[in-house]
């Protein structure tokens, strides 16, 4: 996915209607954002280069020797569909977590359930977080393990995940689906178009002094 171009007032994000590619399973419930990207790798002022630190402490021991982890396995190089279990991404609000996964190569995450801030952060990057039942997810993880080269197709609009001869009845949260399918997930542009209404809302609040509300800029067209 290329980064979207910004233009004034219009929703600039690209549409994400489907994601296809090979899968990579990371098993376990409650995988928190400290595991996805340990805090010591967040001492940076850009997100560049974070991909290599995904799941770092799960992948390497103290001597930097590789441990057993799907992100180390040759067969999953090039995978872009991450398959996880329940409450994935719980813990901190760090966008560094989905940024690291995305920069490693992940374009979509399929799982039993996701922590909310994590799912919101994924959406802000145009990465769908798709949910399905526990049995379906486990079957998909088994399949991906046995068939690391096989394609997994996510249809965001139709809310399905297809692999081999199987079609999983999945779920993509309503707002997320709409945002991705219609390409309106760049909320800065979307909300920036309502600057006049924002000023009005701000002025209506008793705790916001008038002088804190900016004058309309010429290009607002207000």
């Amino acid at each position: 996915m290329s980064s979207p171009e910004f233009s004034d007032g219009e929703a600039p994000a690209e549409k994400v209607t489907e994601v296809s590619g090979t899968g990579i399973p990371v098993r376990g419930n409650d995988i928190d954002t400290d595991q996805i990207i340990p805090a010591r790798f967040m001492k940076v002022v850009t997100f560049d280069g974070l991909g290599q630190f995904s799941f770092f402490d799960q992948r390497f021991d103290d001597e930097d020797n590789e441990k057993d982890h799907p992100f180390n396995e040759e067969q999953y190089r090039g995978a872009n569909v991450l398959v996880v279990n329940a409450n994935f991404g719980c813990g901190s609000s760090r966008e560094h977590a989905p940024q690291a996964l995305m920069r490693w190569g992940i374009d979509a995450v399929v799982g039993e359930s996701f922590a909310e801030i994590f799912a919101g952060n994924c959406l802000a990057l145009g990465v769908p977080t798709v949910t399905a039942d526990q049995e379906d997810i486990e079957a998909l993880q088994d399949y991906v393990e046995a068939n690391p080269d096989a394609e997994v197709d996510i249809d965001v609009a139709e809310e399905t995940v297809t692999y081999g001869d199987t079609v999983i009845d999945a779920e993509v949260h309503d707002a997320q689906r709409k945002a991705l399918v219609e390409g309106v997930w760049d909320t800065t542009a979307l909300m920036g178009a309502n600057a006049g209404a924002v000023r009005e809302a701000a002025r209506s609040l008793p705790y916001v002094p008038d002088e804190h509300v900016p004058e309309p800029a010429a290009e607002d067209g207000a």
Partner: protein
Amino acid sequence: MSEGTLYDKVWDRHKVTRLPTGQDQLFVGLHLVHEVTSPQAFGMLKERDQEVAFPERTHATVDHIVPTGNRDRPYRDDAAESMMAELEENVRGSGIDFSDPDSGDQGIVHVIGPEQGLTQPGMTIVCGDSHTSTHGAFGALAFGIGTSQIRDVLATGCVAMEKQKVRRIEVTGELGEGVTAKDVILTIIGKLGTDGGVGYVYEYAGEAIEDLGMEGRMSICNMSIEGGARAGYVNPDETTYEWLEETDAFEDDPEEFERLKPYWESIRTDEDAEYDDVVTIDGSAIEPTVTWGTTPGQTAGITEPIPDPEDLPEEDRDTARRAQEHMRVEPGDTMEGYDIDVAFLGSCTNARLKDLREAAAFVEGREVDDDVRAMVVPGSQRVRDAAEAEGLDEIFKRAGFDWREPGCSMCLGMNDDQLEGDEASASSSNRNFVGRQGSKDGRTVLMSPIMVAAAAVTGEVTDVREMEEVATV
């Protein structure tokens, strides 16, 4: 859907419009900024050639990477120095108030907002930090956001959100001796699970909550996110107003206080409000509570046995097995007597003056165990100064605690304050994830400040009620 709750009212007051995605565009009344999650957002803003829309509704501090020992600039850690320098440039270039270390107001973002009166009832408050839920203690709607959303707020003064369900958590009765707000929230998360609050905002209510001071309410709201709820709140009442009256915002402006009070009263949950769910917990049955595992939901009362994974719901077994292996605990044992190497009293959950007072009252006349390194990291420079004025620092130092400068410190190990190897810590912080305190083999036991103080003294997890003279402040 809920109706007539504080959440509904504050949401409606801040809703700008419905977006094409089905989300609502909400005006943000207060945007708090720190050095870890903001630089990329300011970078995105620059890329788009945009300016900060509401600089006066934005406030910054430095907490995550700031050293708690030698703070001479440049910081010894180059990465920390460059993050600090970036933040300074970003906020000064945008006209954003900055509680930096030279101001005497620096501290953990969720400590300084409430102490300066920035945090007020009926506000929407966001920060690129999941513990923003803390500010809900004042009857604000407060939640953590990601960096792209920080960009949204900087550029537009708004966030895009979907409305969630409201669960009232009623904690009845009176808390027992030695039982604190921290024990209440650990118990709640233990009962409802780390994902029990996904899709919900928590309204904390009931006698046990109303009896708490603002510090206790903040500890509870702070950990809402550990239960999966992005936000949690307590309705504002006289306790709230008494705190607010003494803050910078109102201490010299009683007229402003009186002018805003009707608004604060108006957003309180109605008597006949409707909730999506109600949970009742008997506060009088809660005992000092600690974690035995590696999620904040793996908790047990201090006299309760650690559960056998086989007895847990199927979906929790695997996590419990791995947690028990990491922590080296056995089902059937209690956590009492678990050896600790480090005692950490700090974090946005429990580093306010009242927390330090309670711990100090316990520590006075006692000594830290020879095998324990113990540290106190005040939540802010103001907390530090107030504690020093009362002589709390001397009490801690005499007992063998290290008395440090304010910051997030060993809660997440982004500065030099870290566990080493497989050290076990008794910690007043909020997360016991593997690797959280800076060492991937480190072991964290979450507990209240007085329980940390007790563990520091005995060198093991200790039932504070069994020690003589449990202090109450």
